[in-house]
């Protein structure tokens, strides 16, 4: 009964979405406020229906209703509750329900929040959101119904891939989707602005918090995925340049560019058409990613159940959504050309450079990801593009971007003073040069250490330049400390946010450089009591014991780690054998001292009682997670900026009576 309610709610949601996609649009263009006003209650109704469907599916998972085919295929009674819930989005149909639910949540948020949004703009934006809903609801109802029944119902389900039964991965898809779908808000705002034919500072200010929210979620989602890969795949890698990873990284790059170009629209009334295009592209790339992952046109280690029939539907959806929006863009964007003069040396000039590099990087990663597909189509042979391509193209593109990132924030709007900015950065340059020289000399003067030296040099540069910029803002050491602290307290939160996020990127770069250059590993077959050493740690293998988990059996090792005679940690890596489906997994044990990780995993135990013990020393990997956390925190702080909360725009759309408030 409950699955049928869910199915029925989806159908109702589709009809509401059709109304929401059409009536407000007509109302807004004819100045009929009643018709335009339909958008808000429709968005609320849509949320209610979609949430009902989501709740119904989740209920089926929680009570293990195996008469629902989707539950039977992906769940099992012996799974812990967390993974029964996460099972909802561990598969194609369920993840689409999550997708559409998040879309409805964003629609609801826009309907309820932003009271000072002009009614016509809100009506149009919600209508565009509803058009996306119509597409996805049709997709679900016509090709991917999660409520399909199974008769007779099996006694138990087939279970979920044990690799996915992990807290990191339980939350990874919702975060990613919040990011992907969040970009639909920027997209809908962009399309609404194109329909209205008006893009101004106020528009940029309205679209920015949504973009920022999406970007924060996407950052967290990517970081969670990377963290999961690091500690579950058992050899300590954290990024593979796999198509599925790239599918989330490309929109992230485009979204980062969008965040920065929207600032130029807001402050300088320039780069309008470009910003609109980025808003369309960021969401389009999220959709293309969905297509690539699910249609089976690319091979990936993270194979989603792929199905060319669904691929045809998604492609049609892409053609309508992206094609339609780009046609509108080609028609309307030329009229948006306006705004101030653009000096190359200025804050906006720096942001433009940022945009050029980020877009080029996104295009490069997209090209690398799609190259096997092009080669297939053009009969150039079967190729695979791996890490060497991305490292050789992406990294050189990021280096100049980081250099500019240090200078840009010190330039003023309109006309910057480059030599003045560089003078203020002398300390940062000295620190960078010292860091490069020290790292190179200390770490063996090889080619590898030169790479590490440059990587860390870039990180130090960005960190120092960000610190200099922040110190300049609060006039640290130029005024009494109390005055500086007062300045810091009154600084707009977006300024704090920028400094935090840029520092976060610096920290992450340091992590990447260090982890790439200095990891060490040792693999030994050890008998109980045997000792191995790595990177100054003494690792005593005390033996293995069998352990029973809720839905797996496991061999757990007891390993004592000490350093110079002092006990440091007891580690318990496991080798698990899941029951449903039967599949072995490894669970590494990690001792982190905050700067570097000691990573231990175990292999098979042979007949003589010796167990393969793999120990990795992973220096600076934790910096990756700190960096990602700082990036997200920076975004969050910036999101809490007064101008987003109050949303009081200055300029054209603001009624004169409020100017003094």
């Amino acid at each position, binding site marked *: 009964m409950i699955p049928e309610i869910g199915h029925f709610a989806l159908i109702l949601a589709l009809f509401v979405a059709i109304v929401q996609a059409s009536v407000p649009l007509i109302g807004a263009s004819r100045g009929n406020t009643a018709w335009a006003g339909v958008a808000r209650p429709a968005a609320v109704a849509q949320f209610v229906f979609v949430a009902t469907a989501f709740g119904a599916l989740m209920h089926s998972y929680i009570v293990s209703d195996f008469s629902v085919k989707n539950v039977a295929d992906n769940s099992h009674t012996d799974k812990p509750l967390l993974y029964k819930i996460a099972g909802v989005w561990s598969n194609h149909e369920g993840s689409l329900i999550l997708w559409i639910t998040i879309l409805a949540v964003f629609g609801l948020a826009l309907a309820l929040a932003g009271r000072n949004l002009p009614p016509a703009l809100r009506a149009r934006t919600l209508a565009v959101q509803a058009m996306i809903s119509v597409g996805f609801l049709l997709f679900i109802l016509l090709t991917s119904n999660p409520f399909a029944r199974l008769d007779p119902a099996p006694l138990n389900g087939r279970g979920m891939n044990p690799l996915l039964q992990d807290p990191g991965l339980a939350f990874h898809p919702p975060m990613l989707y919040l990011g992907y779908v969040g970009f639909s808000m920027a997209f809908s705002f962009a399309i609404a602005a194109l329909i209205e034919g008006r893009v101004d500072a106020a528009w940029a200010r309205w679209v920015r918090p949504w973009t920022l929210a999406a970007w924060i979620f996407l950052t967290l989602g990517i970081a969670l995925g990377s963290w999961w890969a690091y500690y579950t795949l058992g050899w300590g890698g954290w990024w*593979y340049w796999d198509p599925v990873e790239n599918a989330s990284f490309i929109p992230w790059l485009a979204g980062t560019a969008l965040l920065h170009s929207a600032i130029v629209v807001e402050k300088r009334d320039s780069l309008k058409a470009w910003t609109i295009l980025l808003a369309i592209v960021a969401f389009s790339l999220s959709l293309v990613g969905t297509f690539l992952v699910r*249609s*089976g046109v690319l091979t990936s280690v993270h194979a989603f159940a792929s199905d060319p029939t669904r691929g045809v539907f998604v492609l049609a959806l892409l053609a309508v959504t992206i*094609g339609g929006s780009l*046609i509108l*863009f080609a028609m309307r964007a*030329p009229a948006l050309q306006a705004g101030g003069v653009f000096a190359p040396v200025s804050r906006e000039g720096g942001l433009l450079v940022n945009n050029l590099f980020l877009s080029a990087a996104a295009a490069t990663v997209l090209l690398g990801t799609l190259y096997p597909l092009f080669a*297939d189509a053009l009969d150039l042979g079967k190729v695979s593009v791996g890490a060497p391509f991305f490292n050789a193209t992406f990294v050189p593109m990021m280096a100049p971007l980081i250099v500019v990132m240090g200078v840009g924030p010190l330039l003023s709007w309109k006309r910057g003073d480059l030599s003045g900015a560089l003078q203020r950065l002398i300390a940062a340059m000295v620190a960078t040069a010292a860091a490069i020289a020290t790292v190179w000399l200390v770490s063996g003067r090889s080619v590898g250490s030169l790479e590490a030296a440059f990587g860390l040099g870039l990180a130090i540069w960005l960190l120092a330049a960000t610190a200099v910029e922040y110190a300049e803002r609060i006039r640290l050491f130029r005024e009494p400390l109390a005055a500086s602290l007062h300045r810091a307290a009154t600084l707009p939160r977006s300024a704090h946010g920028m400094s935090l996020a840029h520092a976060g990127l610096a920290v992450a770069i340091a992590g990447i450089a260090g982890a790439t250059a200095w990891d060490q590993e040792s693999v030994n077959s050890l008998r109980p009591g045997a000792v191995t050493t790595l990177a100054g740690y003494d690792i005593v293998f005390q033996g293995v014991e069998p352990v029973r988990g809720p839905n797996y059996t496991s061999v757990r090792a007891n390993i004592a780690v000490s350093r110079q005679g002092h006990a440091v940690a007891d580690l318990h890596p496991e080798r698990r054998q899941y029951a449903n489906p039967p599949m072995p997994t490894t669970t590494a044990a990690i001792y982190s001292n905050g700067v570097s990780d000691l990573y231990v995993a175990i292999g098979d135990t042979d007949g003589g009682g010796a167990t393969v013990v793999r120990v990795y020393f992973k220096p600076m990997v934790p910096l990756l997670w700190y960096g990602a956390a700082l990036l997200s925190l920076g975004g969050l702080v910036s999101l809490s900026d007064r101008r987003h909360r109050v949303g009081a725009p200055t300029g054209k759309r603001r009624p004169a009576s409020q100017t003094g408030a």
Partner: protein
Amino acid sequence: MNRAVFLIPLVVFFTLAAFFAERLVALRHGDAPNLLPSMLINKPVPAFALSPMPGHGGSLSSADIKGQVTLVNFFGSWCVACAAEHPFLVGIKKSGIVPIFGVDWRDDPVKGAEWLSRHGDPYTKIGLDPDSKVAIDFGVTGAPETFVIDAAGVIRYKQTGPITAEVWESTLLPLIKELRK
């Protein structure tokens, strides 16, 4: 600015979409990413002799894979998809349904051995093929690839990409049972 500039994104997108459409049609006709029809299907296994992997038994030669239905799996420690496939191979080994011979392809033997101790060794015998000598004879285009070879030593099927539960149950296992008859 020239209005035509604003058409560029549209043109780029529809070019991409055309490629996607072409691929979808090809998928429907049975093509798959990295799927190549092997010229060697229904031909005898090419003759070869490979040096052994230290610590993993003796050398592997074409003589080893005659007399019963076997799988020959090309892998490498550098290959991410192989790591994804590997637990399944270990499962096959445990079940004892069919012997698997491994060819450690384009790999450093030390890394290959480490990789096996890390992920488990599902292979009856392993040969080293660092210079693609045998891989070229087999027409291997990427790893992992797995060949199904009948008792007469004739190649009967080539699986490109990882063996998944679905591939195993729908294709490989029925084929192996068929070949045993």
